[in-house]
């Protein structure tokens, strides 16, 4: 890389604090959460971060809404697990720390090929093409069980090569640090990329592809480069997942995985560099932790997503940015109106809906009449009308409060409120 690249990266005006904090958090997290379950979760979070960051290079930076991003992480994961197992018997077996790089290569090559088709168009056609490519690759994978292992997938063993440089990668903690190190490097590289001329032009292509043509660049090539780079980082995430789980199934290529990348990146926030990092954390929390708590977790996830799209289009980091901006101005009232109060009302509303849903589930699945279901720590009897009434009341009250608040905010700070929020989050965008 040239000196210009480094100058852009190290210039003192650039907010690199976030990356330092991220390094600290990644390094200290396993010292605080020490159980093997939590180390496992942390590893998954590191992997999900990389996936969401790569997705957001396309969506947040380049305005390309991909419905098939799991294709690149999945193909990367397959190449990685084959590299870990040894391609052609034990002839070529990659040492565990390098396996994620095989994933990156796989994702990049796949994106370089499929990107030729996908990036010819932007906007809705791009989204459609990625959806089609995703279905196509997932179907093709099932037709080639020799490579993709059919329904059962391909299993591997990261311990089979023995310790490397005295580190036993069979254990959970070394794997966490491997994933965390790769995740941090990926974050730094993508952060730097956003500051290069390519990153800037990618933003320009997002905002106005036609004008880009009239300042001397072909928007298709810029989209293509971004697509290949995003594919590379998605493949890296896949490679890390292959090392962490020691199994890759065709689910890793599928539409639901692609949907999860989209959904959680959005919830984290697409206009802030830290957004996808939070998105990755949320993804693991939701799909591993919440799914243990309730059968209806996908339903709640859908609710939260719709809620986010409607009322917090900047995601978690978007809301945080506008609250921080208000606090910095010393405008406590505005900070409360934009952050705390809607969050409380929204959570209350959600709690009401959760209660209603769980009671409905209780009616459907209970083994005996009068059996109670636990809703947020309360024992509720779904056959009692007064319990239903309470749940409805909670839902209605919080929904009403939320709606009233939005009207008030809209009346007191019309337009200005919106554009300021957008300006804040755009400022935070690298």
């Amino acid at each position, binding site marked *: 890389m040239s000196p*210009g690249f480094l100058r852009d990266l190290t210039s003192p005006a650039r907010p690199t604090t976030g990356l330092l904090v991220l390094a600290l958090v990644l390094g200290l997290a396993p010292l605080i959460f020490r159980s093997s379950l939590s180390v496992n979760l942390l590893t998954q979070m590191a992997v999900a971060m990389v996936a969401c960051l790569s997705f957001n290079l396309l969506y947040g930076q380049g305005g390309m809404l991909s419905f098939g991003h799991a294709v690149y992480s999945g193909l990367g994961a397959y190449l990685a697990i084959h590299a870990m197992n040894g391609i052609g018997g034990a002839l070529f077996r990659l040492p565990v720390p390098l396996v994620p790089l095989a994933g990156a290569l796989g994702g990049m090559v796949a994106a370089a090929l499929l990107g030729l088709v996908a990036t010819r168009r932007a906007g809705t056609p791009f989204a459609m093409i990625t959806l089609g490519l995703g279905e196509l690759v997932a179907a093709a994978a099932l037709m080639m069980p020799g490579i993709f292992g059919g329904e059962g997938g391909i299993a591997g063993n990261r311990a089979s090569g023995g310790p490397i440089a005295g580190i036993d990668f069979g254990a959970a903690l070394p794997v966490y640090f491997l994933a965390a190190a790769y995740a941090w490097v990926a974050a730094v590289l993508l952060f730097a990329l956003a500051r290069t001329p390519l990153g800037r032009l990618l*933003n*320009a292509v997002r905002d106005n592809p036609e004008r880009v043509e009239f300042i001397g660049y072909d928007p298709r090539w810029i989209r293509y480069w971004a697509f290949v780079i995003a594919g590379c980082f998605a493949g890296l995430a896949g490679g890390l997942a292959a090392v962490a789980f020691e199994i890759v199934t065709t689910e890793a290529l599928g539409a639901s995985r692609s949907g999860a990348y989209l959904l959680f990146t959005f919830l984290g926030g697409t206009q802030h560099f830290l957004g996808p990092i939070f998105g990755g954390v949320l993804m693991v929390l939701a799909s591993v932790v919440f799914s243990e708590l309730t059968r209806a977790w996908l339903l709640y996830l859908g609710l939260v997503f719709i809620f986010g799209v409607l009322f917090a289009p900047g995601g978690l980091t978007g809301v945080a940015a506008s609250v921080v901006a208000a606090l910095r101005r010393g405008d406590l009232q505005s900070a409360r109106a934009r952050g705390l109060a809607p969050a409380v009302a929204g959570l209350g509303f959600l709690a009401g809906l959760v209660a209603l849903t769980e009671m409905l589930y209780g009616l459907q699945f209970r083994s005996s009449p009068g059996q109670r279901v636990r809703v947020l720590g309360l024992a509720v009897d779904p056959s009692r009308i007064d319990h239903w009434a309470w749940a409805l009341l909670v839902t209605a009250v919080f929904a009403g409060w939320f709606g009233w608040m939005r009207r008030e905010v809209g009346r007191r700070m019309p337009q200005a409120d919106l554009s300021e929020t957008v300006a804040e989050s755009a400022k935070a965008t690298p």
Partner: protein
Amino acid sequence: MTAILELRDVRLSLGTAHILRGISLPVQSGERVAVIGPNGAGKSTLFDVISGRRAPSSGQVLLQGERIDGRPPYRIHRRGLSRSFQITSLFSRLSVRENLRCALLCSEGYRYPLLRWAKPPAHLLGRVAHWLSVLGLEARSETMVGDLAYAEQRALELGVTLAGNAQVVLLDEPTAGMSRTETTRFVELIRRASAGRTLLIVEHDMSVVFELADQVAVLDAGELIACGAPATVRDDPRVRAAYLGPLHGAQTPER
């Protein structure tokens, strides 16, 4: 002297509609040519053909002696032709500074930016600062383009068009929607910022035309009906009949 930009019998038909009917126009280096004509005469379409947004059905467009017709806009831009848009067309979620920076990249030698890291950014940033001061937008440099006032957006539109140092510049109604005083100031800005370049300008405001242009080309229903010095064109009976006549060359038909 050879023409820096030359149109040779440029025609454009869409289905049965003949939008441009054989336009030939040589433009000498350093000239300022105003293209005028009633609405629907094909002025903006002519700009689209020259700048590569549309390919002509037949005929040739030559830039510095080389054919550019039918080439994609970004290639034409790299050969030194830049255009602005009638409806402001900028990068709305980037700051003023970033917009100018993007507009300059190409002329700084950044081709496909990943493959080649041409010059240190100090030089580029210096040029951005220069343009900010020319446009009078220094105080707004970190403002997002979407939040700019209309006149500021028009100034930036001009800046983004000129910043890449293109030799031939096409301005599509640069003063559209501006007040009288804003227009006067803006014409001065155009004159200053485009000094030494070849200028083609579509304009409805006749005072702007007669103030800026050395040559006036009159388009009517896809045909070039007159071309020459402003005074000569003003007195041409055909031009009067088609366009200027009813208003005696004073104002635009739209306003």
